[in-house]
């Protein structure tokens, strides 16, 4: 029951969605529309569940002694502040919700990712090594693309942007296409095994 019913549902919904792709009958379309609707709702419910778990984890940590409780308290405070702003105020332009988003969440998020620019720089000096023919090729292409995509490269007038563009448009596309075709075929295989209930990792635990 606990395993067979979910597996039955997976198969039923999987094949229903596959079959409706090939049939234009109104009944198929109606089922299709309803299932899409449910996927939305279930996914949203899952996100809410994730938020609940997040809050629960930090609540527990706050209750426990140790240095980390301060951070958990901060995380909870931020969460509650945002929830209150969103549900008690509004989400329109000019609301506290968007103000917090624009002036705290967005800049922090952007700054975290801009840290990577610094790490790229230090890795460029200490880590990026042409230790084999392949790695050397990779680095040369990377440097060519970097100089070909800035105004300085365009001003040099020795065809750097054009060469970089050709590398991206022809050989790089070919390799990516090979990867895509491989992954595409692999995904079909995985999807079929999921629908047949052979692949059960999503149920939790092993096969």
């Amino acid at each position, binding site marked *: 029951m606990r395993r067979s019913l979910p597996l039955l549902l997976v198969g039923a919904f999987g094949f229903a969605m596959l079959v409706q792709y090939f049939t234009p009958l109104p009944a198929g379309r109606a089922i299709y529309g309803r299932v899409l609707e449910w996927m939305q709702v279930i996914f949203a419910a899952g996100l809410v569940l994730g938020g609940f778990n997040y809050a629960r984890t930090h609540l527990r940590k706050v209750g426990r002694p140790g240095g980390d409780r301060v951070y958990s308290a901060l995380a909870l405070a931020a969460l509650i502040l945002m929830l209150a702003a969103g549900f008690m105020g509004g989400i329109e332009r000019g609301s506290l919700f968007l103000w917090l988003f624009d002036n705290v969440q967005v800049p922090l998020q952007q700054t975290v990712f801009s840290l990577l620019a610094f790490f790229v*720089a230090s890795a460029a*000096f200490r880590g990026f090594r042409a230790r084999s023919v392949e790695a050397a090729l990779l680095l040369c292409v990377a440097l060519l693309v970097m100089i070909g995509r800035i*105004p300085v490269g365009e001003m040099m007038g020795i065809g750097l942007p054009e060469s970089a563009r050709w590398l991206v448009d022809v050989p790089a596309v070919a390799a990516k296409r090979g990867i895509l075709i491989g992954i595409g075929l692999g995904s079909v295989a995985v999807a079929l095994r999921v629908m047949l209930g052979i692949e059960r990792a999503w149920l939790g635990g092993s096969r």
Partner: protein
Amino acid sequence: MSLATFDRRIIFGVIFLAVAAPLIVPIGLVSEVSPGTQQFYDLIEQLPEGSVIMLSFDCEASSWPEIGPVADALVRHAMRRRLKIIGTSFLSEGTALGYDLLTRLTRQTGMPYGADWIYLGFRPQYIAAMLGMGESIQTEFPEDYTGRPLDSLPLSRQVRTYADMALVVSIADDTMPQYWIEYAGGRYGVKIATGLSAVMVTTFTPYLDSRQLAAVIGGLKGAAEYERRLGIRGSGSRGMDAQSTAHLAIILLVIVGNVAYFAGRKKP
């Protein structure tokens, strides 16, 4: 001073200077318009006045400094061409960013909400939502971002499915355009274009070549090129000096690092 004892905080300082210096003292480098950006420009230019385009803000806040300027330039172009805009988003943070951008720019030109543009808001399960809009936008989004019933907005009465749209543009920093191609494009045949962060450019070039994407514009450089084509100077153009010096700095660091590495290896 050997590489093994080298403090990386010195490199951090170098790269910060390489970015900050040309911002304080601009060099005024100008971008050439690459064929890809021109293709995107032509695509928008060819749409008849009054056509409806969908702008989907499929990005996180973290990459907004890079693709915000792309979105900004595209919206300005669309407004100049008097296109109607339907905004939506499949990543939560993109929702507020897109809403903010559209309200700000449409206020400047007095483009009325409801008649000339609407904002649908966020859907978490993007595949279902993309497919759902191919059947009926009104069913997929019964209410707009601020909770108004969609049927009360004139533009939504005019647009029922993708068939009523000239183009979908996904502003993305990750693989979301792939789902647009696979689901909205593959099944409903809507024309799709994308404004990408530079990271994703190589991922999507095959789709441009196979015409599953109508046009691609990439990163801050793409924004600078688009701004130049539009004849404006925005944050894309302003960033090009710093982008150039920073690239040169990185290239130099890679070369020096490798020379030191190989020189060090030859010695016993």
